[in-house]
């Protein structure tokens, strides 16, 4: 499968395996197209999860991860791509509706914009919150003090 995809997309794809789990590191430009192909032709019809990992030291700070599963093959695959802070990723809601809330959560937690998402707004945190808590530079007890004071009427949420 990977060779087939490689033949089609060239060097943008790097397939790998760790502890028996397959993953592909993919160039960000290939993303919506490749995922579409994975769903339509390779039967990865179930989007398990969309998430991200923050590496502040890197130039392209975020790893964006799609975890896919195929009922047909009983097989999982992870698709990873790197994107820079402030850059936006293509949304896969059109391919898997399941991505809707998952992408909203990634946006909420990391501040990654998704192009083409129907309703990209915060999901777990309140709408007016400042900051994206799962970034490495966001402290564990850090809070949006202003929001807490205005909306909860208390000095601090701690």
């Amino acid at each position: 499968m990977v060779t087939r995809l490689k033949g089609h997309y060239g060097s943008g794809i790097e397939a790998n395996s760790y502890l028996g789990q397959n993953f592909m590191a993919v160039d960000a430009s290939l993303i919506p197209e490749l995922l579409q192909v994975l769903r339509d032709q390779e039967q990865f019809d179930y989007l398990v999860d969309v998430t991200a990992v923050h590496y502040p030291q890197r130039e392209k700070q975020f790893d964006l991860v799609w975890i896919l599963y195929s009922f047909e093959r009983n097989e999982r695959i992870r698709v990873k791509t790197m994107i820079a802070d402030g850059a936006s990723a293509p949304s896969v809601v059109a391919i898997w509706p399941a991505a809707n809330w998952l992408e909203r959560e990634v946006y909420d937690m990391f501040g990654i914009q998704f192009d083409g998402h129907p309703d990209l707004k915060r999901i777990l945190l309140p709408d007016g919150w400042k900051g994206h808590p799962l970034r490495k530079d966001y402290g564990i007890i850090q809070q949006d003090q202003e929001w807490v004071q205005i909306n909860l009427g208390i000095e601090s949420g701690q």
Partner: protein
Amino acid sequence: MIDRTMIDRTVTDRTTTDQAMTDRTSHLELEQHDKTFLDSNELIINMGPQHPATHGVLRVILKLDGEKVLGTECVIGYLHRGVEKIAEHRTYSMFNPYVDRMDYVAAVSNGLGYCEAVEKLLNVEAPPRARYIRVILTELNRLASHMLWLGTHALDIGAITPLFYTFRDREEVLKIFEKYCGARLTTHAFRIGGCLYETYEGFEREVKKFLDFVTPKINEYEELLTTNRIWVERTKGVGKISAKECVALGVTGPVLRASGVKWDLRKAQPYAAYADFDFEIPTGQNGDTYDRYLVRMQEMRQSLRIIDQAVGKIPEGPIIAKVPKVMKPAVGEIYHSIEAPKGELGYFIVSDGSTQPYRVRVRPPSFVNLQALDMMVRGALVADVIAVIGTLDIVLGEVDR
């Protein structure tokens, strides 16, 4: 007199003005249906975050035409505790108890998923005895979770009696947990590499006794509900979701199986000791609330079957593998998922070689399943929204993490 005490928990959310609500729901496009001169205005109702039937602090904004639901929007996050952020600041074993607090109804399953994921990352395997104990406790937990679901679901639909029956029987499960590890709800039963506690004296006998006790009880629930006309009318054809829609929306667990997809991670990618046992995956055909109910009832029976098999042949041997005191997995990442009572519960763990995970991502089944709510209730009645929230079996601790 349960309904009288609920009155104090009045719903109206006074912090939200009508204007703000309208703004929030402005994107809920209205279906164009034939309008007649008798049509009334749309009503926007704020269901929750404190509402008897939203199972915690879920807030659903309903756009209604009379009693008909035109659209919904879920507002979640009231219970957000930043579990994933906490994980980055704890060592692997320190984070273990935290996962119990996500799906607090099925804490054992959460712990199992996390421990197995870290074990995979460390490339160790739990010894067989530990795996059998894990299977028994996890299946008991599945029973407890399904019982709680059944009770609250029936209560939402208006049958108040099953709640007390299921709580009575769930109590027996919790007693076993308590005897095993000292905790009833957030058990922290397993450790990375196996189990910390050996089974207590008479564990097998008690589990067997529990099996004998609970089998007629499940029949009793079924007697109360399965052929009850009102129950069937309230659940049949309500909140239908097809297999295709389930897959597209990432819905897993009993909801997916009730739509006719015979997929269970315990069979598809066996973990713990599930490969050793003989059990079936119950499925439905219609994907409605009634089928989901039947599937869960069957699942309870299958769980009993698994426990029955496991308890008879727990192998001897150590209960914990050799894992270092200070865990430093090699740089890498792992995704491991198990079949929690609610669906696929996955852990995506990234290690940077230090004692603390670099990133832990939990793939919560309730969160993804809840996404299907809007699709399932459009065009239905308000009463169906309650039934569908119940049948999705969400736990807000897991949705919000």
